[in-house]
């Protein structure tokens, strides 16, 4: 092999090596950081698409509507809990310790990210309510479709 080809081969090899290394690492890191989205009903009954139920301790996101009257606060700290419901009779309790977003309200669609604590409760480390009155994540919008009556109960 002439030196030029040899050099090219080396470069190509290192390129392929670098890329595959990156891909390998990426896929490994990805595996641990994919958070599936569930509606309250899906947490209880399993995903609509696959029927798989989440396991306790699994990281996930849950989206639904905050049930009116369900927000309970701890008097001494920022601990709060509330129930999330959807249009299929699912209901889970979310526990959160921290500051709720400005647009968090009863009867509002929100997304919580956290781990599944028991069959029907979630320990959230983040609660999101987007910064726009009209806005609702499409998944949440699907989950609470036809529930506008909840909103008027406020």
């Amino acid at each position, binding site marked *: 092999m002439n030196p030029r080809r040899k050099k090219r081969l080396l470069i190509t090899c290192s390129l392929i090596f670098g890329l595959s290394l990156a891909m390998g690492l990426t896929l490994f890191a990805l595996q641990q950081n*994919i958070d599936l989205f569930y509606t309250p009903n899906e947490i209880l009954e399993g995903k609509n698409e696959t029927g798989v139920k989440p396991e306790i301790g699994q990281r996930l996101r849950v989206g639904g509507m905050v049930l009116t009257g369900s927000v309970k606060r701890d008097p001494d700290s920022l601990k709060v809990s509330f129930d999330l419901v959807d249009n299929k009779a699912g209901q889970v309790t979310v526990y959160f310790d921290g*500051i709720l977003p400005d647009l968090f309200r009863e009867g509002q669609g929100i997304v919580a990210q956290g781990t599944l604590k028991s069959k029907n409760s979630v320990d959230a480390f983040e609660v999101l309510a987007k*910064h726009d009155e009209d806005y609702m994540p499409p*998944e949440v919008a699907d989950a609470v479709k036809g529930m506008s009556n909840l909103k008027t109960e406020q």
Partner: protein
Amino acid sequence: MLPEIGQFSLILACILSLLQTVYPLYGVRTGHQGAIRSAKMFTVLQFIAVAISFVILAYLFFINDFSVSYIATNSNSALPWYYRLSAVWGAHEGSLLLWVFLLATWSIAVALMSKNLPVESMARVLAVLGLLAFGFYLFVILTSNPFERTLPYFPIDGRDLNPLLQDFGLVIHPPMLYMGYVGFSVAFAFAIAALLEGRLDSAWAKWSRPWTMAAWTFLTVGIALGSWWAYYELGWGGWWFWDPVENASFMPWLAGTALIHSLAVSEKRGVFKSWTVLLALSAFSLSLLGTFLVRSGVLVSVHAFASDPTRGLFILSFLILVIGGALLLYAVQASKVKSRGRYELASRESLLLLNNILLIAALIVVLLGTLLPLVHKEIGLGSISIGEPFFNRMFTILIVPFALFLGIGSLFRWKRQKLSELVKPILIILLLSLCSSLVFLFVFAPALTWLAMLGVFLGFWIIVSVGYEIYLRSTHRYSFIIGITKLGNSHWAMSLGHLGLAVMIIGITMTQNYSIEKDVKLAVGEHIRFEHYDFHFDQISALNGQNYVGTVGTFSVLHNQQKIAVMNAEKRIYTVQRMPMTEAAIDAGFIRDLYIAMGEQLPDGAWAVRIYYKPFIRWIWLGPLIMALAGFIMICDKRYRTKKQPLTDSKNETGEQNA
């Protein structure tokens, strides 16, 4: 009447952009000199037309013409005048108008400043820019017309600009970012023109380089501004969220960074040419992809504007046409591009190649993390989100080889480097950077962690090697004092750019490792103490702004029994949209920020308060600013602007002044 003139002017610009493409290319084909030279004229006319349209929209905002539905949706008569003007790019339609306006600005800059570019090359470049502009004009006119009227029943007042956008950072963030996005179209146009011509030489790299650099500089500032805005305005105190839209701006930046390095090699050594062309094509394609992701509403994010499927479809088709066409052209023509220079494995060329590989790896990570949720959903596996830890971990891994090789890279010679010569410098650098990072941590860090040590070491590794390299270079032929004045602009630019990265790495490391974040419940009169700071919640008072009301909490901060700051954290309600907003109080400092944001008032009258101590967070934005300064110095390099050059490359002048 004015909106109609604006609209008409926009249509005129659209037609002119088409002419700017077709007629000069026809001229190049047939050798018709008049047609070739017409490119410049069409560019100027097109710029004037779109500028008129842009100015009219801005004026309509200024005079509160709510008969225009875009203005009625995004402005309000109570809005201060400067926010009324920045509201022009506050939503989808207007920001696209800004996009085409900036594209025309770049085009006219190319047309007027590249006097020594051969007319035919210039005609090709302008034609490509014209074609891109044409696509975007069609998009604006057909799907997102900013001049649409609400007549005959127009509202008395507007629905107001989103309160999040009523902020100084957001006045300049979008134009800067767009200058960057759109600026890569120039590099793209140069690459396409070179491929069309089938000729790619060092002169090409030299023409294209300052433009690419300018675009990269704007993008750098734009992203840094966005990050700064997110920090103080969103009220979470974070500086980067790996939000799809942030990623969309970060991907072209990564490709652009790879591009400016590979362009340097192409210019100086005449190698990597086809790779450089591919990068130039990708940088702009990624800008387009970013636009598609943001504008089509396929991704859920803070930035997502009201989505409309026809818009998404249009951009997607445009994206496929542009990227597909460019890659097809590349496939056909790239084989004609010959790289002549030779270099050995241990050489600066190889290290720059490595730099490119790592940047592309980072790019792939971000691309994967951004698009995977989309793919996952489309193939019916349900919605997922990819957590921050994924990106953080990947970048922690990638930055290590990147910083290490970056440090010693500039010590390598072009073409061939005897590794034995580098042993001594590397040992010196290693020793110095280890010492300085330990001293630094000893002084500023409350405790040592492995990650913090690694990060700070990498930062100092870069700083020390940059300093050492400057020392070596300037004492190469002269004494240090004289030598240092002889270093060229591009050398300073390189050193500064790398320093900027080092500053940023240190900033990120310190912030991520030593931040203290406390969400606490505080009532007026109570206080909380941490990290030698004592935060007293003094009082709550009412707030009355021009277009908002609210409450303001006053905190006084004590450090070693001395009062060092009084901070006012606001909770605003914008009256028109009834939207609550948190205005954080920040006591900014070179080595630490104190950050207070008011949460909600709890039923018993106390407040949920978020109190942060963020060491070195300013360095995260200082770094990019230094990088941008480096870019600016680079553009000012004499070799890109002198009119009289030695005979061999007399056509190389490409002045650039608007950075």
